[in-house]
């Protein structure tokens, strides 16, 4: 019996949430999960807030995750973590990339980017794992692989073996980018493990 897992991936258009959800779905499929993935196209792509919902289980009905139901929120950006936090289940884990991307109302000076988002969330007793995914991706050789660094940390939370993740990466990512993404995955996998108790 496969335990149901709901993963919410949140970020900003262009950060690679969709690719990350594809790798997760491929890995979950190999383990035999039923899967539903839901995302929004169109307006959301133009630098807006984006969310991809991934639901795994023996049998999944709804493609949507409701408030208070996500086992894991994988946040690609701090403000988006704050925006979607109410979707985290009590006792769930927030994996957060410590990157800040200012939305236009903040750039235009009509709104403020909240201070100390990570500390604020931690103060609520939420289980938070902070990653420097962008920095790690750059040191792996490609800033665009930050999504796969985060995926590596997510892998520590799911009952899917490392080998299956590696196969899923190979099946999803173009061969010329596979090596850098494998390195990025390893970086996230290690960071996620070290951080497991925090």
């Amino acid at each position, binding site marked *: 019996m496969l335990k149901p897992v709901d993963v919410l991936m949140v970020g*900003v*258009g262009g950060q690679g949430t969709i690719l990350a959800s594809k790798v997760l*779905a*491929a890995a979950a*499929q190999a383990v035999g999960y*039923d*899967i*539903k*993935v*839901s*995302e*929004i*196209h*169109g*307006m*959301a*792509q*133009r*630098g*807006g*807030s984006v969310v991809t919902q991934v639901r795994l289980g023996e049998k*999944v*009905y*709804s*493609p*949507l995750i*409701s*408030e*208070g*139901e996500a086992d894991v929120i994988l946040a690609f950006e701090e*403000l*988006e973590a*704050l*925006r979607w*936090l*109410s979707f*985290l289940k*009590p006792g769930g884990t927030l994996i957060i990339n410590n990157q800040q991307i*200012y*939305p*236009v*109302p*903040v*750039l*235009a*000076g*009509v*709104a*403020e*980017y*909240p*201070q100390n*988002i990570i500390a*604020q*969330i931690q103060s*609520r*007793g*939420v289980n938070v794992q902070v990653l420097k995914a962008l920095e790690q991706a750059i040191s792996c050789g490609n800033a665009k692989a930050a999504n796969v660094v985060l995926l590596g940390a997510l892998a520590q939370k799911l009952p899917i073996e490392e080998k299956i993740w590696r196969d899923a990466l190979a099946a999803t990512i173009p061969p010329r980018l596979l090596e850098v993404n494998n390195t990025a995955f390893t970086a996230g996998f290690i960071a996620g493990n070290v951080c497991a108790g925090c």
Partner: protein
Amino acid sequence: MKELLSGNVAIARGAYENGVILAAGYPGTPSTEILETLSRYEGIYSEWAPNEKVALEVGIGAAMAGARTIVTMKHVGVNVAADPLLSLAYTGVNGGLVLVSADDPGMHSSQNEQDNRYYAKFAKLAMLEPSDSQEAKDMMGLGLAISEQFDIPVMLRTTTRVAHSQSMVELGEPVAREIKPYSKDVKKNLMVPAFGRLRRISLAERMAKLAEYSENTTLNFIVPGNDKVGVITSGISFQLVREVLPDAAVLKLGMTNPLPLELIKKFAAQVETLFVVEELEPYLEEQIRMLGIKVTGKDLFPYTGEYNQGLLRRCFVEAGVLSTPTQLVDPTAGLSQAPPRPPVLCAGCPHRAVFYTLRRLKLTVTGDIGCYTLGGLPPLEGIDSCVCMGASIGMAHGIDKAVPNLKGRTVAVIGDSTFLHSGITGLLNAVYNNSDSTIIILDNRTTAMTGHQDHPATGRNLMGQVAPEVDITMLCRSLGVKRVEVVDPMDLSRLQEVIKSEINAPGPSVIIARRPCALLKREIKPAVTVNQEKCTGCKTCLKLSCPAISIIENKALVTADACVGCNLCVQVCKTGAMQGGQADA
């Protein structure tokens, strides 16, 4: 073999496996990927038509002549195609015809959330509603068979969460593509009044046979459960209900026009309390109530927006079906509010220059449908209205004729794809009726909003072939527009000069603001830098609403990673603080 497919890709697969020969449509979220996927299959002819009406007419011709056909569009596209659609049920088909209507509850990417199920009832079509990708594929195939068996067009009605959600689909092998014989039959296909009256009677007979089919098809089925609570539902709501009330008896309707009225009566009689769960309008509920059945529907569940499990749970708690959950501690209580992150025009977007200029000139601007609708949001605020595809031109003409103090102060703004979709007739009208209005065609050489689809002025078609490229300038001239100017919108001073001169000129004017979409032709030039001494922190550059520009400690900052070097801010800066990497050719 099973694959994880979106509803749209599954529909394309269903068309491929079930002998579709021709596919036509116009891009529109959430329907676009169906034709994009179909265009990659061997043996299927697929095309983007300039609008949904033409796409459906292409489909009608192919189906009449014996080919299996799919026509795709978003919900509001069906309004454009409504004219042929309402007579199509009269003539019927020869080869099967499935019209996909992709509705958008919650308006993720639409101007309204109309419920197109009423079209099926109004036009007298058979209607199927899938609730996941497997059903989407299966219903595509079954829809073609029903269309042929009952000589009726079939509407396959999806919603965003079916079209854009992925779930597991069992793939099948394609059947042979066969064209049914065509023979001339004017009493069936030539809708003059005398024949129309005959086909009207035939249509009633065909619908009666379909109603019988609806009673017996496995598309409509009962999920047995505890009969204390029964739920009638269809589409994505079925999945939500199964999750929220796993023990309830459920009547799942896959065929929602005509409805299986006897099956509904039987189900209603076996349950103690009956609910109907459907997003948007009370389409099922009204028809169930007409049977004299007592049912709870829109008095409990919302009329608007998308449903989700949380919302349904709250409703069923209110109805006493579920017990009140233990109050959870809200983890977000006391945290900072998250400021919104609205979509914006991309860095380097050529539309930005036009809206900045229109705002500066304080003009009244009738807008249209596309990425550029974002130009109406602060701080650009360069548009007054957006109604539907093509509306901008007619509206500007109406203002020009009716309101003297806005004459010469109004312009219409429309994209290239939208102009070719339904702006041409508006422009023809402006010429014919001696308008003084000014029309700006934002020609970015693509259908950008839906993901860069080709159109009749791009020189390519959906199959990837080189295609004749309509010359928009010559098209406007041939309609009788004497004043047609082409400008590069990134040349801000010339753009402003041309707009000023055209709004004051007599007769209709067209300004074609031509520059490819910034995402289409990714020419990244050196980023703009800010001379800290010259910058006075006046914030003029912020009015461009560029995602690369911010003000930090009273000085402008251009984020080098985000800037593509379009140099628009260099032209706007009053103090010369913005320094371009190189002149913008």
